[in-house]
């Protein structure tokens, strides 16, 4: 299947039939529509389509595009700017394959490695370490912010709110900020390099989620690492996210120019502007 086969005679925009510039216009010398050099597929691109997975992908998309065009030619429906695949058979078979894969994984793991069933809980015996499920460690850590709950001089050295309330407020602040992020940043960037500030902020958030999770178990961690004290660990859990922010920002900012250049080059070669 060549490029010409399915471009000939197809009119998607109501204008002239588009060609790939292979024919002449009545002996005027130049083809009617010569694509600029940077939009022509390179030999590397052409070669990449002739083997392996890239060939399979290419043929699949070409086939889908071709079927699409045949449908468009045969019917009188209005052309829309939508790129999609039909639910049957494309999407259905793909989803069946994915579902079968995960079902197989679950059967395999549950059959080969049956899970450990612990003894029933003993209400008379409190375990030495009490922790919530792992995905709540960060929230549990925010409940342990007693050292930075300030003693106010104006209250005669008393704390304005109790440590428990302070921890709950800290949770509200963090969750509130996370809830605000979608309104502060519309998410038009596809990759972190496109917006280094927000990428670095995300890195800092992840690091903070890890360091704050260590706060409730800092006495255990401090026992394992000689140079660590509890105070140092507590300070580090706030310093490390800031350090991570600046490192990530510096790296992304440095990568940005070269990366965006490559991206634009590739993007405009694959999908030339109309």
């Amino acid at each position, binding site marked *: 299947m060549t490029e010409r086969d399915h471009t000939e005679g197809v009119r998607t925009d109501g204008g002239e039939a588009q060609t790939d510039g292979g024919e002449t216009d009545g002996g005027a010398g130049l083809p009617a529509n010569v694509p600029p050099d940077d939009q022509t597929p390179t030999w590397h691109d052409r070669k990449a389509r002739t083997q*392996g*997975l*890239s060939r399979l992908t290419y043929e699949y998309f070409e086939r889908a595009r071709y079927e699409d065009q045949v449908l468009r030619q045969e019917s009188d429906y209005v052309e829309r700017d939508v790129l999609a695949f039909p639910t049957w058979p494309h999407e259905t078979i793909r989803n069946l394959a994915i579902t079968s894969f995960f079902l197989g994984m679950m059967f*395999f793991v549950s059959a*080969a*490695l049956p899970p*450990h069933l*612990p003894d029933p809980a003993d209400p008379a015996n409190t375990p030495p370490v009490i922790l919530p499920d792992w995905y709540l460690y960060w929230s549990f850590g925010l409940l342990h912010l007693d050292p930075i709950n300030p003693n106010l001089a104006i209250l005669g050295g008393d704390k304005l709110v109790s440590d428990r309330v302070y921890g709950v407020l800290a949770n509200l602040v963090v969750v509130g900020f996370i809830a605000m992020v979608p309104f502060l940043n519309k998410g038009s960037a596809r990759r972190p390099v496109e917006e280094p500030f927000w990428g670095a902020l995300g890195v800092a958030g992840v690091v903070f989620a890890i360091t704050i999770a260590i706060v409730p178990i800092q006495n255990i961690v401090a026992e394992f690492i000689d140079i660590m004290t509890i105070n140092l660990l507590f300070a580090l859990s706030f310093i490390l996210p800031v350090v991570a922010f600046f490192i990530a920002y510096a790296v992304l900012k440095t990568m940005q120019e070269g990366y965006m250049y490559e991206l634009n080059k590739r993007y405009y070669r694959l999908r030339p502007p109309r």
Partner: protein
Amino acid sequence: MADEFIKGLAILTGSGMVWFTVAAWYRTEGFGGTQLIAPRPEEDLGTYGEALLVIGDIALYFALIGAITFWVLVPAFREGRRAWEERQRAD
């Protein structure tokens, strides 16, 4: 580049699953004890058990070396060759 990534990932996950299974069968003391990296059991495992231990070791090294090869070594080699070719062209 995407091809290299999926090759490395397939090797890491597929081979890692084999290692994971063998290690869970023979290298795990229990839920409370050392998991996956405990020393191999003392008792006689029989031919199949011994073979599985060897297969598990092979799978572990294959997973690690395979992932490193496709994610680090092959791209590094290509980048190096490209840089070398560009330097040749510049001269």
